[in-house]
């Protein structure tokens, strides 16, 4: 299709050129005819001139059509293409830039909301941590107090036990001295008799 159209253009261009060339050639022949003849012959071409001119013209047309026109046509074509491309590209760029703009706007919004979310989370995290630390510290303090109480209590008990122990030691020492020193032989014998009578059997079972 395109090739056909290109050929048609070429043919039409050749025709125009040929016409232009003939109109350029005609006045010259007309002047020549005027000087020699008059009347109708003035407008009729002089065959002797006309034929070579026609030949030259045709040769020119052929040469131009063959070598000049394609270049000219290609140039036109290129130019047209360039313009078209530029237009299309600018259109694409515009759309792209609009899209990017949209994206940036969206990201900005996202970032904003994320930032506020992070802040909120950090706040709640901070509060939770704070509560946690406070609770822990309080528990620890209570624990320490309780332990201290326990330690004091244990110390007291230990002191009592020690005191009780030394009282026991002392009383036993006193008792043994009294029994050992102050009992007469008969009293000793009385004790022995009582113990023998109270004592269990040799066969414990």
């Amino acid at each position: 299709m395109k090739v056909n159209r290109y050929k048609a253009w070429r043919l039409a261009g050749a025709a125009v050129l040929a016409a232009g060339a003939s109109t350029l050639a005609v006045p010259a022949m007309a002047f020549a005819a005027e000087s020699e003849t008059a009347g109708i012959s003035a407008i009729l071409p002089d065959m002797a001139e006309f034929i070579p001119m026609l030949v030259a013209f045709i040769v020119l047309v052929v040469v131009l059509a063959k070598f000049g026109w394609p270049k000219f046509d290609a140039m036109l074509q290129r130019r047209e293409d360039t313009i078209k491309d530029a237009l299309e590209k600018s259109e694409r760029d515009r759309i792209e830039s609009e899209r990017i703009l949209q994206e940036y706007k969206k990201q900005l919004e996202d970032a904003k909301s994320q930032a506020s979310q992070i802040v909120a989370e950090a706040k709640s995290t901070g509060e939770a941590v704070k509560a946690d630390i406070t609770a822990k510290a309080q528990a620890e303090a209570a624990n320490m107090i309780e332990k201290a109480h326990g330690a004091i209590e244990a110390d007291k008990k230990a002191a009592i036990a020690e005191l009780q122990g030394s009282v026991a030691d002392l009383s036993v020492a006193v008792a043994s001295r009294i029994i050992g020193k102050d009992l007469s032989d008969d009293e000793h014998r009385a004790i022995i008799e009582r113990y023998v009578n109270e004592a269990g059997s040799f066969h414990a079972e």
Partner: protein
Amino acid sequence: MPNNRHVQKEKVATYAAVLLDSAYQAGGQDAVLQVRDQAERIMRIERSNMDLANALEDSSYTPEQRGQVARGVFADLNPVLTEVLAVMAERGDFALLSRVWASYQEQLERKLDVTVVDVTTVVPLDDHLREVIAKKAEADLGTKVVLREQIDPSIIGGVLLTANGQRIDASVVSQLERARNVLKEQN
């Protein structure tokens, strides 16, 4: 040296029987009881005196040397006991002494129907007390009783009765000790 348990046991019983029988022939029950006490003392000495024990059991001495040592060391004892100990030393059986002693005790009870009760007190016993103690022990043990009396002031008061490895500790010192422990206990 035979290690069989039964052979060993037989040997111990023979030593004890010889000791008991010859002591009884030599001096009746009194000698038998004397031998018992002396053997017990030797046993205690032997346990705590390593030199003596080693000398009497050392196989690098000849049997005669060991016998001589035993006769020399135990010269003051009842001659029957001295002789038996010397034989034991000669034959390298001195280590069996404690088992011989136990067997002797057991045979004494069986053959003479007598149990020895050790009585430890702070003051000497009088006849009344002896009777009270002997009666109680006879009732408990079902044999005749011989009392071996010892005075030991360290028990402070009361009495300590021992027979056949059983002991009734009615001494004041252990009573006080018990009281001290109970008092020290936390309720």
